């Protein structure tokens, strides 16, 4: 059996998953209890859970797809573990690639995309992937409190100066969202070096991304208006996830209906 996908590796994965789930359930139950204590309604709390769960499905499937991309070199289990704890595709692929490059010129040199057959290379990759992200687990417990207090003071959340705090808080989120909107409008596809060649890992901005963006924006605005007009309070948690699915549905529709030369057209394709 492949050493990358044997019982031992699955055993490690189970250990990691049990920890991640235990931590999440612990914080969830604690927050829920505190919410009830300060008078939040069960329906509000339930709505947050339902909407967050629905909202997570599509991105989680996309993350699953990145596990598959990484599995061509690393087997399925290590990418699974890595994307369960502090992971994302761009990072994991870069880390795996950097680790493999350290073996260049040796007997077992591999490039990202080729299967690793030497446990030593595999162990090196696991170490590099881990050490590259361990910084979060050092910085967060040490500095999170300081960072939050400093920012809280600047935005005035601590002294009741709400209007300004609310505006700065909204501006912060809008700044974050703007980066992704900009990417959907004019960005190029992210790339990784696979078998020595630069390859796009997804799609850059083009017909598809702009159509998807417009669809999800319009769907959300229309659904929100309908909810307000007809008082569909129970439907509100589904508005955001549904708008997202509508956007993704538009991608499938365009791909099915239009010729690829139009539907997959990118303004600035990766050469």
């Amino acid at each position, binding site marked *: 059996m492949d050493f990358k996908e044997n019982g031992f590796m699955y055993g490690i994965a189970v250990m990691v998953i049990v920890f991640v789930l235990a931590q999440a359930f612990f914080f969830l139950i604690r927050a829920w209890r505190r919410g009830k204590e*300060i008078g939040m309604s069960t329906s509000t709390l339930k709505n947050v859970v339902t909407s967050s769960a629905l909202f997570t499905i599509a991105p989680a499937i996309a993350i699953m797809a990145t596990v598959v991309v990484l599995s061509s070199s690393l087997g399925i289990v290590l990418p*699974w573990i890595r994307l369960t704890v502090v992971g994302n595709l761009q990072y994991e692929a870069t880390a795996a690639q950097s680790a493999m490059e350290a073996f260049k010129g040796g007997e077992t040199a591999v490039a990202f995309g080729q299967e690793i057959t030497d446990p030593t290379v595999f162990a090196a990759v696991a170490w590099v992937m881990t050490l590259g992200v361990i910084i979060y687990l050092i910085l*967060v417990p040490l500095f999170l409190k300081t960072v939050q207090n400093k920012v809280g003071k600047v935005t005035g959340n601590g002294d009741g100066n709400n209007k300004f705090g609310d505006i700065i808080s909204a501006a912060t989120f809008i700044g974050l969202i703007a980066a992704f909107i900009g990417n959907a409008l004019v960005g190029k596809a992210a790339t990784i070096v696979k078998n020595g060649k630069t390859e796009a890992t997804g799609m850059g901005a083009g017909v598809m991304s702009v159509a998807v963006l417009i669809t999800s924006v319009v769907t959300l605005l229309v659904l929100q208006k309908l909810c307000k007009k007809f008082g569909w309070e129970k439907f509100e948690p589904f508005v955001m996830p549904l708008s997202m699915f509508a956007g993704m549905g538009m991608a499938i529709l365009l791909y099915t209906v239009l010729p690829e030369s139009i539907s997959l057209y990118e303004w600035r394709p990766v050469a």
Partner: protein
Amino acid sequence: MSKNKELGSPYIEKTHFWGRIFSVIAFIILLSVPTMITVHYDAHPTFHQIFDGFVSVALIFWTAAILEIIVYAPMLGTGASYLSFVTGNTTNLKLPCVLNAREIAKPKPGTDEDEIVSTIAVATSTIVTTIILAIGVLALTPILPKITAKGSVFAPAFNQVLPALFGALGAGYFAKHWRISFVPILTAVICLLFNGNLGTGTLIPICVVVSILGAYVMYISGFLTGGVKPENPLKKKK
């Protein structure tokens, strides 16, 4: 409804305590993965083989980690930060999830309610992601490459998760705060026109800083308050 607006309320203080404990356990578990692989397979890469790979990764990603914590932690809230930085996928999943949850529950920023909503959102998202990944790995591995493979009908949809996600999220914000939305979007577009490959890790801090500065200038000039010039909140503090 709680009006507890103190930074570091007893609940949040306790969250820091538990968050730190879980971070230490996560640190040990994370390091135990390569350690167990090394010991079990008797596979010992040399110091240089690990260090060479590590340095090129650390230069980029350790810097990005510092920026991420400064920019995202205040947006996420305390419990959500501890959870999110342990489980990863912060920008493409956890943070959007928190924004979505806040849109639904509409808590006041900085209150215990706000903290509870963001914690529940990230905890739920973590549980769902972990379950989907587990099911996916165990059951869907043979099918998934076909679904996401180039040429599959579903492939374009998975390539467009981010525009779909941030379009849906942004719409509400842009409709409500259209005045402060122009500047950061324009900034993102201009930056990307100069360098189309600029990673979101770099672009986000730029857009966030520009957005905050833009909003601050608009606020003190009275553009956001119907022409009435409010007192400069930063000067008032001194």
